[in-house]
């Protein structure tokens, strides 16, 4: 079920809220049980067959968590954890990377393997990473759950299940046992609904609007047609804007939906296109994935503790795997490696020039960062290296071709980029309601307040979004 679909908005969500508040009167545990069942219905709605891999994954990881907790002070602790992580990676590999391995990796190794082409269960990357983090945290004595119901809710809670944010057991379980927000339901409804309205508008109106300028250029490139300077920049910029409004819109909706039930999720975006360096970009983009890769991959690899060379190698490994996590294709690996190289370059630059940058340098850094990010997105979006190189060639002014330049799309993308760079983000706008788990800066302008003006502004955003539900489109991150 999609957040931007009529069945979700007009049937599932009202029923889930009504049921939750009804059971909440009986007690928190019945309410948890109801939310768990609702979340499983939400997940299985798309394809009931997907529920089995999810159930197997939850049952296995719950048992592994128990085993790790029992053995963590013995010599077996590390072995059980390693087995648990290996099982999760194997699970992900079977569903997500089997075809990639058979068709792209095995031939390089001289092997002939026939891909079975299993269906990819929705959100498999997200719920697998969530549970790997849980197993590591159990080993580190940061988490432990002996209650199957609360563990199942932790994994399946529908606002985050399919496309994140990637959550930690230690930050969620206290809330699942006792909600952090001990405020009246109406306060949670106001805060959650307001943030949800902003997120839905970002996805259903802005991202889907600008999406129409993305496909023509990338399709032409996929067909081998060269692109002019204008056409290439139009599709690359439009995709840059689309993926931000699509995924950050989804994340806003997720945080807003969780808040309707009195639960706080971590925020996932903090105006990434305001970044003046790639290091800053990764602190602001898909923050829960960055946190996961840092805490459960970069640090265990040694982080920056073993000298600059090792740190740069670690960064490259983390970013290459981060790219592969997004999709089973070499173009995603290339995207990850490009960001790895940019991060290494950024760290080296900081060593050469450790002083605080001036205003001019900040502006130059911002322009350079955006150009590099936009260029890297081309590999993320293109379905082959050939297509990506055609777009990049066009962006460099070396293309030609008959593909039309959509000047309105170029202007729209530039306006939206400027908006991303200058306007406060969703959680800053909603600062007065305390959105998400972390404290948020208050904006100088556009701060939400429970006034008639804001109620009508959000009503307009919701009404316009509802009028787009006829052409419900999937979220880009569903495929990752």
């Amino acid at each position, binding site marked *: 079920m999609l957040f931007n679909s009529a069945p979700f908005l007009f049937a599932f969500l009202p029923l889930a809220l009504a049921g939750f508040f009804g059971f909440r009167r009986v007690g928190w545990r019945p309410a948890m049980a109801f939310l768990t069942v609702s979340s499983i219905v939400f997940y299985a709605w798309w394809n009931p067959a997907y529920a089995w891999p999810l159930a197997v994954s939850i049952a296995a990881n719950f048992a592994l968590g128990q085993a790790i907790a029992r053995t963590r002070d013995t010599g077996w602790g590390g072995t059980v954890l390693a087995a648990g992580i290996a099982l999760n990676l194997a699970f992900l590999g079977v569903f997500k990377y089997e075809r990639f391995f058979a068709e792209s990796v095995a031939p390089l190794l001289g092997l002939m393997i026939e891909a079975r082409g299993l269906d990819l269960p929705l959100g498999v990357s997200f719920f697998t990473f969530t549970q790997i983090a849980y197993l590591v945290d159990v080993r580190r004595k940061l988490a432990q759950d002996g209650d199957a119901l609360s563990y199942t809710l932790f994994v399946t809670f529908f606002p985050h299940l399919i496309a994140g944010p990637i959550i930690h057991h230690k930050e969620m379980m206290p809330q699942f046992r006792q909600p952090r927000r001990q405020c009246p339901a109406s306060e949670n409804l106001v805060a959650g*609904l307001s943030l949800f309205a902003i997120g839905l508008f970002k996805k259903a109106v802005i991202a889907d609007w600008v999406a129409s300028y993305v496909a023509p250029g990338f399709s032409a490139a996929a067909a081998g047609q060269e692109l002019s300077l204008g056409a290439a920049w139009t599709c690359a910029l439009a995709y840059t804007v689309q993926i931000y409004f699509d995924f950050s819109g989804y994340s806003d909706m997720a945080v807003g939906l969780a808040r309707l039930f009195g639960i706080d999720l971590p925020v996932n975006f903090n105006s990434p296109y305001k970044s003046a360096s790639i290091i800053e970009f990764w602190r602001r983009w898909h923050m829960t994935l960055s946190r996961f890769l840092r805490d459960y991959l970069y640090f265990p690899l040694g982080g920056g503790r073993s000298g600059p060379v090792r740190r740069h190698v670690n960064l490259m490994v983390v970013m290459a795997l981060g790219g592969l996590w997004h999709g089973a294709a070499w173009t995603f690996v290339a995207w990850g490696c490009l960001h790895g190289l940019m991060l290494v370059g950024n760290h080296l630059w900081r060593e050469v020039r450790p002083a605080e940058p001036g205003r001019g340098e900040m502006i130059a850094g911002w322009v350079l960062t955006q150009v590099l990010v936009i260029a890297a997105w081309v590999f993320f979006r293109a379905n082959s290296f050939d297509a990506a190189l055609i777009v990049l060639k066009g962006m460099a002014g070396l293309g030609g071709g008959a593909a039309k330049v959509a000047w309105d799309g170029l202007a729209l993308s530039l306006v939206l980029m400027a908006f991303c760079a200058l306007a406060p983000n969703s959680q800053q706008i909603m600062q007065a309601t305390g959105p998400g788990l972390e404290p948020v800066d208050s904006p100088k302008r556009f701060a939400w307040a*429970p006034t*008639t003006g804001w*109620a009508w502004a959000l*009503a307009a955003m*919701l009404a316009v979004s*509802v009028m*787009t539900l*006829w*052409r419900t489109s999937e979220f880009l991150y569903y495929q990752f």
Partner: protein
Amino acid sequence: MSQPRPLSQRRFLLTLLGGVVALLVLGAGFNFMVDPYASFRWGDIKGFNDQKTLRRDGGRVNKALILGHTQFDVLFYGTSRGEMGFDPSSPALGGVPAFNASLSDSNMAELARAAEYAARHQSPRLVVVGLDLMMFGTRTATGGDFERSGFAGASPWPVYARRLLSLQAFDDSGWVLFSSAKGMRQSFAKDGSYDIGARKKSFDHRAEMDGVIRSQLAPTKAAKTYAGFHYAPERMEDLRRLLAAFDNGRTRMVLAITPIHAKVLEAKAAAGLMPAWEQWKRDLAATVAASKAELWDFSGYNAVTTEDIPRDPATRMRWYWDGSHFTKAAGDLMLDRVLAARGDESFGIRLTPDNVETVIGRIRAGRVAYAASHPDEVAEVAAISRR
């Protein structure tokens, strides 16, 4: 400056949710009033909402809805050729209510279903069907939004809801208001015809024609192209269904083989389709002879189909857009020939089983003469087909 007074949580929620409902009702009222796709038939006001659009990507749903609620004396059928070439305002019709029910990118199987639907709601005096070989291939799939339309038996109520409560309709309402105020004709007008000239100010006919020939001859298995096409005589059964739909004793049925430009006919020949094309005509003549309909052939070689293709992009062709799609001017000539018997049989001849071989022979001879008089055009087609 004083801050606005905060609302209570409950009041804020009520304002927000009430606001959503109020704004949706307002939006629906606006769409109903402008009625951008002629869905609600409450009338057009000149300068306000008379320039309605059927939207190309929603055309089948809109056409089915209009055919379901408005009566017409004349209906046109065909593919995009019929949609672009047959003008419901043609002088030859004498101002009677007419509608272009053609479906772009269609085939006989789909058209037969659409015609059966129309015949349940309409009693036209004249039905004109534009025919070309490509409609009689192996492809029978419906196109566009056919399955969501009344043609496929879908209920109109979701369509009405969508026409009231969609952002697209809201956007199109604005466009209709603007176009009507400025007197700008919509390219996909409410009479069902598509006028590419209303959308494109300049038109490089030679480039367009070369584009059509290239795409039709590109090595592919796609049944939509000349290179991948296979004639399927069983489509005649679909034609019989279409004829039977209007076999009510009141409707005159005219089938017209559309006038393909000589250069594009060369491309068809280069794809090896001439034997199929000729056999198709024989089958058509036999099928139509068994009904009360008339069959007219506008293909072949004459002043229309051999019109010079300008090398200057600023020069407009009179009869063609791209060699496959003829202009409304050419469509008017066809209607004049059929309805008023004006012109001679070099452009438009009644085809029967008795004269079909003669006509085929005449066209073969015409092709030889065209090759002699236009060697450069024929050579260009041959060069494209060799790639």
